[in-house]
């Protein structure tokens, strides 16, 4: 498998008078793992949804593997989208379907076809995210928040996408489970060559997952560099963010 490239050039997104993304320039190489960090409400999830085409952009260009999304035909957009997987922040599991049908949804396009093989596939994927086989037959409402997150992760990787977006993959997980997920994401990148873009506030997760880190602030890429440079970024805001340190003006 080979991951695809992602390129954002001058991307702008507004909601009414509020400018959320203000001329974002960002490039992710094939097979690279980029972690995007930034304060709450800085537009990280919005940026992912723009790349996925869920939200329209107000300016700029988004290219997936060199193809401009805005200029692509419907068939091209569908083809590109089929190469992408996404883990949503809240899991976004379908309440009405059992776990195994949630996980295999992209493979069956929501149909109850090939049930035996799909159930077996779901059980395999559940094992990868540290969940037991009986979970496959439960409904999402019967799972804890952390279990839902892991099921959503299994769903995101089920169709073996070339590009995967992870929105807060370890939020709500205990440190051991979080490490399982971090290892899984890292192995997708290292072993399978998947391109990964991860949004997280969990700096331990960022250090384990990332090849590069980008900091989003005030609608722009405030800092960008290798994960090894994160501790010595030379940027006061990044330094405070990484070490969870508020300045005097923010305390109170």
């Amino acid at each position: 498998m080979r991951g695809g490239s992602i390129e954002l050039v001058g991307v702008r997104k507004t909601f009414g008078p509020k400018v959320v993304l203000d001329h974002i320039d960002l490039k992710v190489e094939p097979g690279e793992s980029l972690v995007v960090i930034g304060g709450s409400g800085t537009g990280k999830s919005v940026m992912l949804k723009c790349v996925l085409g869920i939200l329209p952009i107000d300016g700029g260009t988004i290219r997936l593997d060199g193809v401009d999304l805005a200029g692509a035909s419907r068939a091209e957009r569908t083809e590109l989208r089929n190469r992408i997987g996404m883990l949503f922040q809240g899991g976004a599991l379908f309440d009405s379907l059992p776990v195994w049908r949630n996980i295999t949804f992209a493979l069956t396009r929501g149909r109850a076809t090939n049930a035996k093989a799909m159930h077996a596939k779901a059980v395999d994927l559940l094992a990868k995210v540290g969940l037991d086989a009986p979970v496959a037959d439960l409904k999402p409402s019967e799972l804890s928040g952390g279990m839902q997150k892991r099921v959503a992760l299994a769903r995101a990787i089920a169709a073996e996408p070339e590009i995967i977006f992870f929105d807060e993959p370890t939020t709500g997980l205990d440190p051991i489970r979080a490490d399982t997920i971090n290892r899984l994401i890292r192995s997708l990148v290292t072993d399978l060559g998947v391109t990964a873009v991860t949004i997280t506030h969990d700096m331990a997760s960022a250090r384990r997952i990332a090849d590069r880190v980008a900091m989003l602030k005030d609608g722009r890429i405030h800092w960008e560099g290798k994960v090894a440079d994160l501790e010595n970024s030379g940027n006061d805001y990044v330094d405070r963010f990484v070490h969870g340190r508020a300045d005097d003006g923010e305390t109170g």
Partner: protein
Amino acid sequence: MNALVAFFAHPGRATLAALASIGRVALFTLRALGAAVRPPYYFGRLLEQMLIIGWFSLPVVGLTAVFTGAALAQQIFVGGSRFNAESTVPAVTVIAIVRELGPVLGGLMVAGRVSSAMAAELGTMRVTEQIDALTTLRTDPFQYLIAPRLVAAVLVLPLLVLVSNALGVMGGFLIGTQRLGFNVTSYLATTRQYLEWDDVSSSLVKAAVFGFIIAMMGCYHGFRSMGGAAGVGRSTTNAVVSAFVLILLANLIITVLVFGT
């Protein structure tokens, strides 16, 4: 001058907002129709929706029809007695039920039950990002969520209204023969004599149009939900109110077109 501008600004803004809403509904409708005719088709989900919209609405639609037919017959009898027209009860009941009350009351009852449920379900899916997730799972939300509901409602409403019409006429028959002294054979004969094909066909056309309206309003408002639980609540209310108003408007238009000359 400023006061004059302010005076016209409010209705102007309201007009622009209304036009924008009409445009959004029109675009949504076109996209839904496109999704309904373009493969892949979700027959399983279509059957599921037909069951939810049709079968589970039968009790409320049936009871409404029986009670309304019975009350209508009683009123026609009392009103008709003022000018010695009591004998018109079977004829007027069947015409009023089949042309108007069967489809309209059936449509309104289904709108109350189904539009709200669609808006609440899709609204919850929207605010929990389940609709966005569909897009990332190689599935068009319009084909998976909207098209089955739309097609099911258009197919099922005429069947529901047929049942509603039959039960409404039966309600009038029961009151007429058990309480108002009509002869069973003559009541049925008069009912058959005055019921015309145009009455039935217009009733079915109305039902199909109402089914379209019910599904579109439920899906449109649910799909556009935002703002958490409160937003879903607003969408549900808007779906029911807009479906009610559009059903009554469509009924008027179809009635004038079919029976206006």
